[in-house]
């Protein structure tokens, strides 16, 4: 059952008063997602519910699996047939999905994982906000692996970043995590959904060679191998074992290193394309709040109040959390007197800011971890204290 209606604006775009979770599905459909496998978990459940209603109407598929692990596995299996896939979960379920997220990273299987963060650890505060999965999103699965993580701060950005997440996963053949939080997921805002003609959609590239010449993990000039769907006449093996270019297990030391370096290179050689930030009043700022997700809204509020009082406060929103926007941070800390890392956890992103700053600048954490959002006043108070 849907709890929102869509209306049309003068250009024929769909407009509605949507929750982040609802908007995520609408955007995924625009992005071409036609397969969703999930498992019920608060506060992401609306994503699955809307997907179950909407996807089949577009000829897509929805399946509620028996657990979080199998939902991730089913998405990977489906993606191997060439369809764009998505799953959604929250902290505990995100933990369970991790092994198979690693499988997708190693086998370069495009997929989008939405993680609506709630307070942890463990079952935590299921209905309340937290941003405690910054590090789990990066390092949740074992072994060295590349990952892309985007974090929206509004329902409008949920639409924008969901489409971006699908595109990045297709382009780079890598799992992409849309790191939402409970506030963004559940609040309603007016959004305008773009027409298909208004968005650029990216599809994984197809092989240019016949099946007998095809190697599923062959390094090309951009390090991104061409993808042949299962059932298309290209018969090959994929495995969670370290594999050679043909997809078969190998322990050859050169092949091991070649594979691991290539899957990292394909992401880290393209940081200019992948990594995005939004800057608010940075140019003349003395102090800057660095944040992500719904917490950015509190920061923007704090900035407005501060500016009205003549305090030159700016905000840096990290759209991409991983790969971490190191360059931007390094340049920023040299320019301003103080930076504050605002996050709803006991301090996770701040370690990355410190690392990227290379010992320069004054960096302070503004943290809240009681299950509630942080207000502009709370942020400003801390800024004045520190």
């Amino acid at each position: 059952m849907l709890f929102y209606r869509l209306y049309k604006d003068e250009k024929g775009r769909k407009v509605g008063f949507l929750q982040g979770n609802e908007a995520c599905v609408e955007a995924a459909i625009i992005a071409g997602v036609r397969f969703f496998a999930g498992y019920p978990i608060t506060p992401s459940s609306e994503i699955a519910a809307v997907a179950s209603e909407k996807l089949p109407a577009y000829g897509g598929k929805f399946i509620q699996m028996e657990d979080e692990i199998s939902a991730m596995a089913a998405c990977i299996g489906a993606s191997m047939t060439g369809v764009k896939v998505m799953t959604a979960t929250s902290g505990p379920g995100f933990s369970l999905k991790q092994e198979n997220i690693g499988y997708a990273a190693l086998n370069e299987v495009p997929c989008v994982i939405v993680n609506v963060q709630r307070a942890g650890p463990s079952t935590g505060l299921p209905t309340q906000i937290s941003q405690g999965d910054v590090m789990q999103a990066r390092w949740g699965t074992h072994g060295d692996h590349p990952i892309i993580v985007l974090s929206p701060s509004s329902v409008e950005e949920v639409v924008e970043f969901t489409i971006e997440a699908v595109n990045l996963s297709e382009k780079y053949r890598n799992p992409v995590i849309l790191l939402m939080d409970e506030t963004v997921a559940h609040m309603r805002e007016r959004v305008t959904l773009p027409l298909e003609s208004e968005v650029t959609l990216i599809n994984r590239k197809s092989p240019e060679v016949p099946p007998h010449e095809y190697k599923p993990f062959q390094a090309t000039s951009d390090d991104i191998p061409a993808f042949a769907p299962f059932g298309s006449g290209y018969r090959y093996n994929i495995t969670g074992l370290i594999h050679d270019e043909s997809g078969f297990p190998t322990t050859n030391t050169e092949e091991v290193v070649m594979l691991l370096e290539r899957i990292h290179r394909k992401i880290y050689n393209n940081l200019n394309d992948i990594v995005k930030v939004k800057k608010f009043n940075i140019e003349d700022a003395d102090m800057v709040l660095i944040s992500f997700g719904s917490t950015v809204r509190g920061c923007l509020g704090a900035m407005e109040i501060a500016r009205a009082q003549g305090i030159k406060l700016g905000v840096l929103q990290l759209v991409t959390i991983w790969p971490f926007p190191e360059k931007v941070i390094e340049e920023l800390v040299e320019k301003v007197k103080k930076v504050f890392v605002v996050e709803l956890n006991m301090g996770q992103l701040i370690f990355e800011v410190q690392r990227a700053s290379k010992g320069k600048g004054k960096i302070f954490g503004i943290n809240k971890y009681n299950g509630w959002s942080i207000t502009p006043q709370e942020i400003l108070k801390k800024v004045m204290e520190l």
Partner: protein
Amino acid sequence: MKDVIHKYLRPKKKFPHVWCPGCGNGIILGAVARAVDSIGLSKDEVVLVSGIGCSSRAPVYLDFASLHGTHGRALAFATGIKFANPELTVIVLSGDGDGLAIGGNHFIHACRRNIDLTLIIFNNNIYGMTGGQYSPTMSTGAYGATAPYGNIERPFDVCSLAASAGANFVARATVSHVFLLEKYIKQGILKKGFSVIDAVTPCPSIYSFFNKTGNAVMMMKALREKAVMLERVAAEPDENLKDKIVMGIFADRNYKEYTQAYNELIEKAKRSKKDEEPL
């Protein structure tokens, strides 16, 4: 028979295989290839999916699209493949540990969902690859690396579990009865709905090391001696069958298959068009 197997091996053969001399896994693999061949499926229509363990290395050797997944999740990966593209024939090769312990939840739910997959359990009653730990099909009293005093747990009966969980086709044969095994695999592939073939196979290196069951020939002979057909023993009480391997077809029915049911759901959803006409 030799020609059939060669037709289905990878063009660049991946030999030597990982299995020990005398292992029954290759016999099951051969039966899969011959079953596919006798149905007349093209290589491009078939996808093999496996998990982790000795059995799960099988897809590497055959010339099909294949996914060697994570431990226990073969059925979950396979569900995604089949659901996304129901045109494909998806065969899942799993072991008793992979498919019934760590993957036990997926096993019962695949049966319940009755999705058109064919699961072949390479059932050797032990974790071979990790060195002989007791599996969910090991008999009570048998020995393993983690059962030095004898296994106190009771084994699953794979077939009655699958049948009661809702699979459309359930059968058991041993690798000592290879024609019967091949026949059941073929029936399983042809059946619309979820099929389970419990393929009982000896582990003459690891299982035998702990249980002194002799070499491969002795273990193959033992399978022949222990095997009885379901029809002949249907009236026998369970305790008389404790040391027997009951072969036969335990379920053969036509409950509605999942992807078919979903296609009907798609038509229903398209007709309702809830979203397509914004106000």
